[in-house]
Each structure stands twice: as structure tokens, then as C-alpha cells.
């Protein structure tokens, strides 16, 4: 347990969490951000949403435009400097903050980036490992769907997110994940990659989709909207029936909101 954990583990003070919404949730799927807020509150946290937030700078960074990424990183660091904890419903945005800001920046900014990295968490990691969210008193009333899980690459390899989402689905919803054969393989999203090299990306997402369909699951959950938009979009194109959702929605038992890519 680090200093900060100890300081916050006192029962008197609720954990103060700043939600980093992520631009994809902001623009395409606000329900993910709302579900995240509710989950964090259920876990006993006080949630605020810094109003200046836009984008973490990943598109610029990954395209190799470091000059555009630097001011965005600095903007995020300044905005979140006073937060106790920062939580993002995305492994790739949390990975950007935790791993790539310190790599991108130098000198004093690098120090500040490292400070931010130390208090920034991906949603499922925070709920499971830090806030220790409790299961609801009564068992979920709705039928339990069969769920496959897509591990985003940044979550897997930059943040070592493996068990947390599965543990949460088990504890909070009574769901046992139906595992893919190739959990470690990328879905072909890759930010601008999917638009720059569409054919290769299409082949990769097809492989992923075949793997998902082979589990026989009704729902595909994941922690990264980028991957989920990619997979849901390809499923729609191929006419494959699978309900694609961010894990926050599932954990919050929200299946009334139309799934990603589904109409009203």
C-alpha cells in the first residue's frame, strides 16, 4: 500500500476521483461515462468531472505528431494536477497518461507526468483493486447473458489488466466470461491504423470477430471504446449478431441503452 492509499483508506474521507471521460465516450457513448460515475459512486467515491477536458493527445502521438501531442499532454496534466485519483474508462487512454506522457515530455513536465501517472487508473483496475467495490445486496434480476471479453492491447500490455474485469463481472453480475481463443491478439483498431491500412485492419477484425462468435456469447464486453466501435462496426457490416458494450454498462446492469452500432 502506498502513502496515498493509506491516506485514503481512512473511513472518514471518501476517495475523490476525477473522471477522465475520454473523447470517444464523450462523443459517441456518454452512457459509458454515466455508468462509470455511478459505479465509482457505488464504490464509495466522490466523483468530479473536470470541465476542460477534450482529448488525451493519442491520435497525434500515435501518428508521430509529437509537437501536437505535447501541449495536449500538458493541458491534461495541468487540469488533473489537484485530483487525488484519476480514473478513465479506457485502457488505452490510461496507458497514454501512465506510460506515454512521461516518455513524451522532458524535464519538469516529465516529473509532473510521473506524478499524474502514479494516481491514474483504468476503471476496472480502480474499482477492483483500489476502491474494492462491493457486490450489490441482491442478485441481479435480469437473465444473465453469456459474455465474451475483448482485452484491449494497451490494457493488457501497458497496464497488465487481465483479471480485474473478469473479477468484477463475476462479483457484481454473476457472469463468468466465455474466453476467446486468442485473448492476446489485437483487434486491428490501432487508432489511425484502421483508416490508413483498412484492408489489413479488416482482416484482423474479422479474425477477432470469428473468435468472438465461436464462443457463442450473446454479449461482447470490453474496456476500450476504440476496439468496441471497430468490432461492432464490422459485426454490423457482416450481419453478425452480437451485442457489443463497454464493461461499465454491463457492470451497471444497463442493457436498455441500445448496444454499440444498434438503432433505437
Amino acid at each position, binding site marked *: 500500500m502506498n502513502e496515498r492509499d493509506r491516506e485514503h483508506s481512512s473511513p472518514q474521507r471518501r476517495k475523490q476521483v476525477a473522471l477522465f471521460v475520454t473523447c470517444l465516450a464523450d*462523443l459517441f457513448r456518454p452512457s459509458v461515462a454515466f455508468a462509470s460515475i455511478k459505479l465509482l459512486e457505488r464504490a464509495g467515491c466522490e466523483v468530479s468531472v473536470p470541465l476542460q477536458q477534450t482529448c488525451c493527445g493519442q491520435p497525434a502521438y500515435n501518428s508521430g505528431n509529437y509537437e501536437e501531442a505535447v501541449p*495536449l499532454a500538458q493541458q491534461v496534466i495541468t487540469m488533473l494536477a489537484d485530483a487525488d485519483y484519476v480514473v478513465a474508462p479506457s485502457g488505452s487512454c490510461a496507458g497514454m497518461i501512465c506510460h506515454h506522457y512521461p*516518455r513524451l515530455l522532458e524535464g519538469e513536465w516529465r516529473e509532473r507526468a510521473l506524478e499524474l501517472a502514479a494516481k491514474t487508473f483504468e476503471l476496472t483496475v480502480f474499482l477492483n483493486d483500489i476502491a474494492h467495490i462491493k457486490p450489490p445486496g441482491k442478485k441481479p434480476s435480469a437473465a444473465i447473458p453469456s459474455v465474451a471479453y475483448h482485452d484491449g*492491447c494497451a490494457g493488457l500490455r501497458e497496464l497488465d489488466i487481465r483479471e480485474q474485469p473478469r473479477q468484477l463481472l463475476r462479483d457484481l453480475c454473476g457472469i463468468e466470461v466465455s474466453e476467446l481463443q486468442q485473448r492476446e491478439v489485437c483487434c486491428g483498431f490501432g487508432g489511425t491504423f484502421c483508416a490508413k491500412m483498412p484492408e*489489413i485492419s479488416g482482416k484482423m477484425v474479422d479474425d477477432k470477430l470469428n473468435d468472438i462468435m465461436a464462443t457463442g456469447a450473446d454479449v461482447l464486453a470490453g474496456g476500450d471504446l476504440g476496439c468496441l466501435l471497430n468490432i461492432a462496426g464490422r459485426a454490423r457490416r457482416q450481419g453478425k449478431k452480437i451485442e457489443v458494450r463497454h464493461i461499465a454498462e454491463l457492470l451497471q446492469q444497463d442493457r436498455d441503452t441500445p448496444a454499440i452500432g444498434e438503432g433505437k
Partner: protein
Amino acid sequence: MEQRSDTFLDNASEALKNVEQAKRRDIIATFAPLMRSAAIEGFDEFDTLRQHVKRVREHALDHLEYYLGQFEQQAVQNGNHVHFARNSDEFNSVVLDICQQHDARRVAKGKSMVTEETGLNSFLQRAGLEVMETDLGEYIIQRAGETPSHIVAPALHKSAGEIRALFQSTHDLGARDLPETVDLVAEAREVLREHFLKAEVGIIGANALVAENGYSMLVTNEGNGDLCANLPRVLIVCTTIDRVLPLAQDATAMLRLLVRSATGQAQTCYTSFYSGPRRDSDVDGPIETHFVLLDNKRSDILDSDYREMLECIRCGACLNHCPIYSSVGGHAYGWVYPGPMGSILTPLLTSLEQSHALPNACTSCGRCAEVCPADIPLPDLLRDLRHEENSRKLSAGRWRLGIKLHGWLARHPKLYQLSTAIAIHTLHLFGRKRGSYSSLPMASGWTSQRDFPAPQGKTFMQQYKARLKRLAEQRNEH
């Protein structure tokens, strides 16, 4: 070797259409990682060894001149000739000179990616020499007139059926039809044996050069390297300046990582050290031996931010774990080295102008770096190359502009939130019924392959701010 990395996207597209090969690539992409992880699982020292070898390699590169000097001195003392070549032309000429000094007609050649890099075979052939590749995979692709598709398994793209057809059309088989894989191997062995015995010059590569004793080290599974080295009168070891390690034990430490990462074996069938020409007491061996060490921009890389790339031990694990490599295969990359390591080496060893598509063939999924026994941060180096591509304005102008505009907008939160709210609202209006679009004018790359999921409606920021306002009003009323 001739380069066609500039047409990577077209090459890839063609490769994806070859269904047979694509299927085989998928199978290999499933099994190769399993074999590697099985080999690493019971090998607890892997991580410590990886760190150790990394330190050794860093040290060797930090003092490259010193260790190359030591190697040269030791090797000469052992009776070898040592040549340094700045570029491919110099390299090929040195090798040809040696062959001509010995009036050689035939060359038996072991596997060497360096000679692929310099185009040695065709150079020697143009000068009238007969060059025979003796590694089975290399032999097959030489017969087929192709280039390697993998740095460890050069004929990985060929099926047994294709190889059979190749032998049927190029070998004098008589009534034999080579039904089994072992028959194919036996057939190649038969043809090669003859050549081993007739060749005047043997050429092999090296996995490492050992500075302390002037030896080179080579691992093979077929033993062909040893035949190339010992049967012909003259031996030429072809490699690059960055292969030098201080001690013999460094080379064997590296070997333990290399073989497990490459083929999932604990050891290859043959591990050999080559010291020099036959001594009076030896019953066989070459009478003259040469080392030809190529630079070809490696000393530039040493002084650049990509220096870590020189620590690559050519195991091929990053290829085997790369979803893009396994989607399109090695030939699509258009030069000698494919996959993640090739997408870094190709721009560095040739030019970024010709090959800037390659560093973009990456989703930053990070699987390559995770398995790389040399602990090279491949996705970071690829991104740095994209940075260079961007700075030198080699990338498409509309991409650069798009990123710039997005960056500018994202630095102005008020404007960003206002304009995204409008854009998202419009998108939502058109797509809400169906839930997604099958085509969008600004996102044709995306919609060529998949539908574009429609946004839910108002942006989160809009909704959240409205909610804060409502709460404030309620508070005021009370």
C-alpha cells in the same frame, strides 16, 4: 536486394487475396507463439538472462570500436583474414575477389540475411559463379526464384505441395514422386551433397563474433553450415559489425535466448564456433578463411536514437507475434527484413522515403516488445519513425492537416465542446434509426471495411454541464 517497400499497401492487398497462403499464415500465427511460450515457461532465468544480455549488448555497442579491434586482432592471430566493408558494393566486391583469387567456380552457401541485404548471390552469379543455397528453406526459395518471407524460416510461405511441384519441375526425378515430406528433404539433401563436395568456396553467416578469441558462432538445425565451412577449400564468414560480443560466454548466454525465442527449442541441433583455417593437426577444414564485416549504415544507427535496434538478435519472435506480419506475410514488406524489426531496419538501412509505409503498419499492440528477447521497445521506435516521417512531411498532407486541426481544437476546450456537440448532433440525426452508417464521406478508410456506429445523441459534456446547471438552479430555488 531490390526494394518494393513503397508499394506496401498494394503488396499487402495482393497477399490478402492469396487465400491458401493466408490460411497457412493463420495457422503459423497460432502455433509459433505457443511453441515459444512452452519453451519459456519452464525456463525461469529468461527474464534475468534477457536483462543480462541486454547489458552486455549495450556495453559491446558502447565500445564497438574496441571490441571490433580486439576481434580483428584475435582472428588474424588465428590465421584468418578480416575485411571491413562500408556498404553492399564493397562487401560484394570483397567476396568476389576472394572467390576469383581461388579460381572458384562454385559456392556453397549457408543461410545469411546479410548477403540477402547486399544482393550477394546475384552479384556472384553475374560474375559467372554458380551459387547454391544449402539451407533447405533458402534452397527452396532459390529454386523458386523468390526471396525469404521470414528471417528464420525463409520458405515459410511455401506448402509441401508447392515444394513438391517445384522439385518435380526443376529436379530430374525420373519415376520418383516424393509423396512424403521426408522424401522432399531427402531429395534436397541428395542434390546438395553433390554440391558441397564440388564447391571451392563456402559462405556462411554468424550469430555472433567473439572478441576475446576471434571466433564466430553459428547455430543451425540442418548442419549445412558446418558442411559449407569444412568441405570447401575456402571459407568466408559474412556478417555485420554489430554482431561482436566481448566474451564466449556472452555468445552462449545470448544463444539461450535466441533459440527459445526463434523456434521454441532449448537448443538447435548444431551450435558451432569457427576459429580459422585448418591446422597441421586437423584432418579437415578450409585452408583459407575470411571474415567480411558489413557496416551499411549501422555506424549511423549507432549514433542515432534507434541504437537499440542494433541489439536485435534476429530471432524472428516479433514477426511470429505480429498480427500485421501474419496477415500479409513477409514479402509484402518489400525488402529483406519484414515484421516489426524489419519495419524499423528497412527505413534505417535503406531510406525512409522509400519505406515510410512500414512504420505505419503497426497498431502499437505491443506484443512484439513483450516477447523480444533483446528487450527492444519496437512500438516506440516505430512511432519515432512515424514522427520522423511526419517531421519530414513524407506522410500524406491530409493526415497531417487533420491531426493539426484536431490538436488545435482540442487545445481550446470551449470551442472543442461546442463544435463537437454540433457535429455529433448532426451525425446522430442521420444515424440514430439504423444505429450506424455504412458510408461516411470523411471516413472512407473506416467505412470501406466496417459500419460506423452512430453516436448516442448529445455529447457527455453537453449533458453533464446541463445537469450541473439544473442542480445549481434547484439549489437556488431552495
